[in-house]
């Protein structure tokens, strides 16, 4: 449905991005294109640079060379706060809620760069409608929630920024199978409401069922990209990420 080569209307684009931690060269000439309305999944083994991709988008690390475009404009020199204002919001690895703040306060922090007017209340209602559980728990300290509930708050917190693109770092990590399924359903729901999602996942099986397209990262290089449907039947992917032996 969405073409992988629609770079002219990309919402987020990486052009030959290189990212280093000191001497450690992590992202190597990486290119991504994410169009508005897509769910794009980033697959890859441990320590290949998936989280670094997310950090590069959010401005926690800066690329050493290359350009990151959001809505056609370079953002790689902008502060994280400025990127949040422009419409990028994260769902962080291991959720990273503020444990000694209430659920409601965590949602408020999601809307930190915005004014607290009627739009805030509107978005709060949307989050509560999406996650009735979150509404029930709104006065509870978020550190006391179960992993699945925390994930709902983490997604709700990202939505409170009223972003145009949400970056999710391993949303299924550490969740029970039931919650994994629920989380992916939610991701699909918010995507159908128009949200663009760039998602890192180890759970390729589930991720490829909801994603439109995927990239495969190997030691910092994009080695494969294509539609999720192609990926699901690609023997290399099946072996490496779907836990099946390649059909010889």
């Amino acid at each position, binding site marked *: 449905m969405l073409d992988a080569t629609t770079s002219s209307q990309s919402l987020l684009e990486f052009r030959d991005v290189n990212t280093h931690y000191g001497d450690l060269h992590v992202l190597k000439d990486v290119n991504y294109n994410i169009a508005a309305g897509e769910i794009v999944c980033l697959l890859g083994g441990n320590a290949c640079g998936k989280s670094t991709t997310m950090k590069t988008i959010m401005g926690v690390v800066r690329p050493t060379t290359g350009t990151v475009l959001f809505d056609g404009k370079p953002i790689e020199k902008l502060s994280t706060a400025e990127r949040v204002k422009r419409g990028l919001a994260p769902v*962080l690895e291991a959720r990273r809620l503020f444990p000694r703040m209430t659920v409601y306060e965590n949602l408020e922090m999601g809307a930190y*760069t915005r004014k607290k007017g009627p739009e805030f209340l509107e978005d709060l209602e949307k989050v509560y409608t999406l996650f009735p559980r979150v509404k029930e728990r709104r006065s509870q300290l978020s*550190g006391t929630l179960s992993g699945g509930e925390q994930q709902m708050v983490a997604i709700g917190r990202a939505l409170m920024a009223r972003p145009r693109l949400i970056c999710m770092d391993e949303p299924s990590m550490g969740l029970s199978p039931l919650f994994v399924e629920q989380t992916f359903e939610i991701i699909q729901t918010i995507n159908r409401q128009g949200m663009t999602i760039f998602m890192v996942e180890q759970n390729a099986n589930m991720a490829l069922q909801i994603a439109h397209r995927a990239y495969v990262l190997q030691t910092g290089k994009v080695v494969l990209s294509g539609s999720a449907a192609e990926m699901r039947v690609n023997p290399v992917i099946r072996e490496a990420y779907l836990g099946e032996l390649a059909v010889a």
Partner: protein
Amino acid sequence: MTATDLLVQQIINGVSLGAMYALIALGFTLVYGIMELINFSHFNVFMVGSYIALYVLEAFGISGQSTLMSGWPLVGVLVVALLVAMVGCGFLGVVIERLSLRPLRGVKGPSAMITTIGVSYILFNLVLLFLGTDTKNYPNPLPPLTFAIGGAVLRLREILIWVISLALMAGLYVFTRRSKMGKAMRATAQDPDAARMMGVEVDRVIMTAFFLGSALAGAGGMIFGLYYNFTSFVIGYSAGLRAFTAAVLGGIGNVPGAMLGGMIIGLIETLSGQVVAVRWTDVIIFSLLVLVLVFRPAGLLGRVAPNKS
């Protein structure tokens, strides 16, 4: 005075001192909570605050045992002195952070902490150079009104100290719970990276923590003068060290911990002076500190591992 009266008297005094230690300890704790930095310049920010309040009072003609002012004018002058000391120290804290610590942001290891030691020496020596080595008399402007509690007396001074301290701590509480910046401070203390990705400008949070912490130390400096009726360039190291101990005892980084630690140290100071002997005060304080840290390494109310995962 009976033994009970003495005990009550020392508890009254101890609460005043404890409130002062708590105010200073809060400055250590606010900064540590956000940056995991022990700010040694805070000792002498407190000392400077004591001088600022003194000079404001003197500028209004209040010195020595003068009871030249009373009623609302006196309240007004006290409020002005308090505010000037707080705002002055607040800006001093911000300047220290901006000039000496921000350039070191992201530098790993103890360099930031050591820098604060250097800044502490600079403040200390500037005061020494320009204000002299002599101990300064602090005015005692309050009318000699007292209330009897059995045989113990509650002076107006105590009430003033309690009112100031309570108001400031309540203000800090409301600020961190209700205001946007206060919530950003708490979020940053709990998870700085996540806070940054919510769009929090962490540099501004750090600046706010320095301003508030230093302003509270400024109030502590004025309370020191009112309580002891003197100030001197050494009080940063004497009273400041006890306030630091209070922060560690309560759990550095933990706001209620700083208040609790301050109260404990204040009460130990007055009660040990009464029950044992003044020269044992530090022995008792630091023995208690060691004992608490052996059994609760993070302090009385501190968390063992700050949640950073």
